[in-house]
């Protein structure tokens, strides 16, 4: 067993951003979203993530803006703490420990120093019984404060934060659960409850789903399971309450929201239509249809100019108040299951998997951002639960990324499976995939496997699909040129193969594309792709083959397969015999396309182990027990952009490629080495804010890139980055001078740009020489470091800093004089401006 030194399993692809409703800051500039264990701050104008607020140790369950200070925000988490943040700078101000898992947080301006949280106080007795508790936040200077002053306001409330809301600036609080609406009036200190019948006529479900309060009027809007919206009035008397009903939604209303002025009510549900009802004239409504996926939350900015809807496909849409979509923030779409394999787009190097229903998503792993969605099904999506839709079940790329094959499938009860095989060609002009051929009903039953031929010559592209109808088919691009110019080459069936009317399961091409292996239950058949002859059969009874994989490069003579009875077999294709086999319950076997390595995920007592090995060597290169709980069914090797220089045997397999995998809970994970993490930390660490520098455009320009003062390995590793001259007197002077007395920017620009350049006109040549020397020294150090693996890092760091410090002032000092001259100049320039 090989010991794994510093390889860790880490999350990738972010968490849900639609878990709780997004919170908009008062100036509508930022959007705060609870996302996993952190709170993400997005800019509403650029849709980029500005920073993460990290600190919670469990799922963040709610975010609100502090009512008394609109630059601070509270967040609550299942770890039992409420934290106060400065979200503009991303600083944790205070932590209040409550002690019980918190499900949601509410606050209003009229209750200063108090937040209302939903928590289960009696964790020991009934964990499902939740209470709304007022927490008096103690005033104390400490970072970590324990909040002990708790007083229950309402008992038996819903865990859904949308079901509790403050009305009329905190005069009352409304909470709905099941069939009960409860209103607590703070002035009267009294709670009124209103009940609905379980089912009125036609078996409608009256269950409350969400609540919204009118900001000016005494009116509560409630959404219901059956799609109705009720407007409650006169609820401050127990007996004389009234309600009116609005009905447009056909399924449950998932979110309701009044605009700040109270003129409109917004509602949304699974239909993915945003409905805007005019308050008091409810027959006037406007619609914004086809928002992409079911609406989960609706929020309105405090000035009422922007609406934000979060959707079930991990997306937040920004909508202008004239009901026009202006932008969207999209995260990695995670469905309940990924039916397509994880794939790699060879062109964009992005991860490709199922996204929205009927789409393939292209997710850039480097930038951790969704690039685009490819609409595969190309049909109007009907947002209705229980409807069988076309789903993309298989997809495959060819080696060059020119062709993409997708299979979509729709299963209806009592009807045949509808299948479509589509072949997409990459269009250089539009930089996207364009549909080339649609083959309807390519097989009579479901397609079990599909792969492209790996051969590097582009003359013949071949696709093989295996199906439960007992056949496998080879598809080929028609080579013959058509007589008409407008007709492009299309795909057609080249060969249909079968073996003893057994059902083929998986197929795999050898690295050079000359052999095709198709597994028919327990038999592996090997075919020649040139003549479609059955060359040989290999088998390992009594259980069916699960995975098939050809070895690569020096191991291309091996064919590996895993069987249902916990066996991993390796056949030698030259002798047509079993080379070795070992007993392990492999759930997934995959080959690294750029090395000989293979990865096998094995089930072992409820968790998954990983083995990385070469088919030719008996000893695994790497193994890790309990990579994650549950089964791993999807994984992929992706090539790295830059190679890692790791010499440790156990991490060498990660030098050129990375291994990503999906867990049972649809979390995207990967393996990182320590070297890689260090590098990431170095490049991503933000600057400590220098308070002496005022907020000027120049500051913003420079501040992002400023280098850290605390020396670390950054300058050593990324030597190509020139140290920026922020420390110089000139720049400081430049930044501190008020903007209106500075000369024109075009005048300053050239100087500024020059200061960034490594100056050639610098008179002190010897300085440069030393710099070069140092560079070469650094390189030597690097190579040494390889051998000693990181022990020299502390020595190297000061050296790097020294280089940075000596270089920066030297470059700019020459221009201090120049700048002084400019400062004298500016008065006359300013006077000239006044005269004109």
């Amino acid at each position, binding site marked *: 067993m090989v010991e794994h030194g510093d390889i860790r399993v880490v999350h990738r692809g972010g968490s849900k951003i639609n878990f709780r409703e997004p919170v908009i800051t008062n100036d509508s500039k930022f959007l705060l979203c609870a996302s996993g264990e952190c709170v993400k701050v997005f800019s509403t104008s650029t849709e980029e993530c500005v920073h993460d607020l990290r600190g919670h140790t469990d799922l963040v369950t709610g975010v609100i803006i502090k009512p008394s200070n609109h630059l601070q925000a509270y967040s609550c988490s299942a770890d039992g703490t409420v934290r106060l943040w400065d979200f503009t700078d991303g600083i944790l101000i205070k932590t209040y420990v409550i002690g019980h898992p918190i499900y949601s947080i509410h606050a209003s301006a009229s209750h200063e120093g108090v937040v209302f949280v939903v928590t289960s106080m009696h964790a020991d007795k009934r964990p499902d019984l939740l209470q709304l508790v007022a927490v008096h936040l103690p005033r104390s200077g400490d970072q970590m404060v324990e909040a002990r002053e708790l007083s229950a306001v309402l008992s038996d409330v819903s865990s859904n934060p949308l079901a509790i809301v403050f009305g009329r600036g905190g005069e009352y609080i409304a909470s709905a659960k099941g069939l009960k609406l409860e209103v607590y009036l703070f002035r009267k200190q009294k709670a009124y409850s209103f009940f609905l019948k379980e089912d009125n006529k036609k078996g409608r479900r009256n269950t409350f789903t969400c609540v919204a309060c009118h900001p000016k009027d005494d009116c509560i809007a409630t959404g219901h399971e059956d799609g109705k919206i009720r407007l409650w009035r006169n609820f401050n008397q127990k007996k004389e309450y009234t309600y009116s009903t609005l009905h447009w939604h056909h399924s449950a209303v998932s979110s309701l929201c009044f605009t700040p002025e109270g003129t409109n009510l917004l509602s949304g549900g699974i239909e993915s239509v945003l409905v805007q009802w005019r308050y008091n004239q409810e027959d006037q409504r406007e619609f914004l249809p086809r928002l992409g996926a079911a609406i989960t939350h609706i929020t309105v900015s405090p000035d009422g100019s922007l609406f934000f809807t979060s959707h079930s496909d991990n997306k937040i849409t920004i909508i202008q108040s004239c009901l026009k979509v202006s932008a969207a923030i999209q995260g990695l779409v995670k469905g309940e299951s990924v039916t397509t394999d994880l794939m790699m787009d060879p062109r964009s190097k992005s991860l490709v998997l199922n996204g929205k229903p009927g789409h393939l998503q292209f997710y850039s792993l480097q930038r951790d951002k969704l690039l685009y969605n490819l609409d595969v099904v190309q049909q109007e999506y009907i947002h209705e639960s229980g409807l069988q839709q076309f789903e993309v079940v298989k997809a495959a790329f060819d080696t060059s990324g020119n062709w993409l094959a997708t299979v979509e499938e729709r299963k209806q009860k009592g009807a045949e499976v509808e299948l479509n095989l589509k072949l997409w060609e990459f269009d250089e002009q539009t930089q996207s995939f364009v549909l080339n051929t*649609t083959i309807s009903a390519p097989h009579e039953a479901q397609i079990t496997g599909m792969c492209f031929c790996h051969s590097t010559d582009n003359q013949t592209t071949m696709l093989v699909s295996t199906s439960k109808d007992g056949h496998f088919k080879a598809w080929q691009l028609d080579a013959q040129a058509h007589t008409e110019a407008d007709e492009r080459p299309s795909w057609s069936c080249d060969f249909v193969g079968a073996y003893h009317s057994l059902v083929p399961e998986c197929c795999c091409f050898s690295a050079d594309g000359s052999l095709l292996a198709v597994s028919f239950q327990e038999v592996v058949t090997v075919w020649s792709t040139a003549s479609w002859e059955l060359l040989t059969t290999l088998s390992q009874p009594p259980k069916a083959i699960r995975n098939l994989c050809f070895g690569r490069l020096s191991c291309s003579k091996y064919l590996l397969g895993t069987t249902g009875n916990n066996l991993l077999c390796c056949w030698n294709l030259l002798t047509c*015999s079993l080379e070795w086999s070992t007993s392990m319950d492999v759930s997934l076997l995959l080959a690294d396309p750029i090395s000989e390595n293979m990865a096998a995920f094995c089930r072992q007592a409820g968790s998954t182990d990983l083995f990385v090995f070469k088919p030719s060597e008996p000893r695994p290169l790497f193994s890790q027990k309990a990579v994650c709980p549950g089964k791993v069914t999807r994984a992929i090797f992706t090539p790295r952009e830059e190679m890692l220089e790791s010499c440790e045997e156990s991490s060498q397999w990660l030098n050129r490629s990375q291994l990503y995998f999906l867990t049972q809970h649809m979390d995207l994970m990967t393996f990182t080495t320590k070297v890689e993490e260090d590098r990431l930390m170095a490049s991503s660490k933000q600057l400590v804010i220098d308070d002496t520098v005022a907020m000027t455009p120049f500051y913003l320009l420079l501040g992002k890139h400023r280098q850290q003062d605390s020396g670390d390995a950054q300058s050593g590793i990324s030597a190509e980055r020139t140290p920026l001259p922020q420390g110089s007197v000139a720049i400081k002077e430049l930044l501190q001078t008020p903007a209106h007395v500075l000369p024109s920017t075009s005048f300053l620009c050239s100087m500024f740009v020059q200061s960034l350049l490594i100056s050639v006109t610098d008179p002190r040549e010897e300085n440069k020489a030393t710099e070069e020397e140092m560079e070469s020294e650094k390189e030597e150090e690097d190579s040494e470091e390889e051998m000693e693996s990181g022990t020299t890092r502390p020595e190297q760091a000061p050296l790097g800093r020294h280089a940075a410090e000596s270089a920066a002032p030297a470059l700019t000092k020459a221009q201090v004089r120049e700048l002084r001259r400019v400062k004298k100049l500016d008065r006359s320039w300013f006077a000239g401006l006044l005269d004109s």
Partner: protein
Amino acid sequence: MASFKPTKIQVYPKLGEKVTQDTLYWKNYKAPVQIKEFGAITNIDFSPVAPHNFAVTAFTRVHIYGPFSQEPVKTFTRFKDTAYSGRFRSDGQLLVAGCEDSVVRLFDVSGKVALRMFKGHTKAVHVTDFTSDGYQILTGSDDYTCRLWDIPNATELNTYQEHTDYIRCGVTSKLNRDLFITGSYDHTLKMFDARLDKSVMTMDHGHPVENLLLYPSEGLLVSAGGRYVKVWDLLKGGQPLVSMKNHHKTVTCLSLGSNGQRLLSASLDRHVKVYNTTNYKVVHNFDYAASILSLGLAPDDESIVVGMTNGILSVKHRKSPEESKETSGQQRRKPSYRVFVKGKNYVPKQDDYLVSKPVKQHLAKYDKQLKRFNVSKALDTALETWLRRRKPEITVAVIKELDRRGTLKNALAGRDEQSLFHLLNFLIGNLVDPRFAPVLVTTAEMILDIYRSVIGQSPVVDRQLLRLQDLLEREIDYQKDLLEVLGMLDTMFASSIPRKEVPCSGISRSNGLGQGEASTSRPQLQAT
């Protein structure tokens, strides 16, 4: 916000032949002119000189037709019995014809009475032709001989008695006055030189030879006999070049078209096939009403004349360029290009402020209804007369879309007699179409479920339902028959494919399984 995605109309592969340059060319003929003759038309010959009249030999007469007349411009009736092989001389002045009574007659095209009678054959003469100098006549007869005659003296010059069966075809060289080739029912083709007393070349066709044709260059010879058309290379001493079997009955006639670029063959199977003479592939096919005995092609393919066993002469004239343009112009009568680009090709100047107008998505009528979830109305729109008659695929696509949305039942329900009648009519028309069957069968089932209670209330609907039942019963019978045929074919294929042993990996003990042959079937094309 994404825009509405319109219903996808499935594109089905076009059935029938592919449209190529050749199909366009050979389809560009007017409707045929049909002329009734007295008996089977055995020969058609075009005059080599303008206006390219053609001589039609049928029963006891030879008619000469002008290029555009439906009445014969000239008739030769002085035959005692069935006439054969009326042919023009290269100057178009003289015409020779054989006869069942073994006499060969030579006519002046402007005269009526035979100028010369060549007597000497003992049986019917089926072959007559002029030599290239125009002073001699070649004849071939059922008495197994072929003879050369001198025109001025009406004397026999030579007799060749080498064939052992009827001589039914012959051709003289247009470049050499002494060379001629004859084909006989003894399966051979023989080439003779008038300067020698015997044949100089013999080729075996393998079947009774019905017709012969020399290429203009005279390097290649084409022979027709049995179901085969064979091409021989004369310069290589009569080596067979190509053998074509495209007809399923005896090939009776050959002709060259498009200046030797295309070869036409006519057969008793009522087809005329056009071959490309570079690769000898069939590029076009004409169908006729009866078995074809003779075929003539005017120079420059101006007209195709075909004579059939039932005595009908079919003349097809090529469409003039204006005519062919007219027909294509009618198809393309749509709003003119100018309407579409109006103002759109304006290039904004430097200081112009561009106000962009939102592009309105154009949706079909049924899509507009589908967008509003008006399912019944969408189905009504898709069932409009024009759509359901001309574009059933659109109607089917809408039905499919409704089915996908789970609202097909709602759309089908609640119809009155009239609209149900239309719906059933559409089903009856398209249910058995294999392209639409999967969708329409579910639709039919739903209709039966929904309207089961009203059966017997409307005679119109009941009649339609009975028709539907009839149709389905017939279709089931067809399917049974087809499956039977399939089973037969399978057994035949299985017995014809050689059994092959697959090398089995029997080296390791665990690999005991897996002997046997792979069942491979022919590739089948299913791409759309």
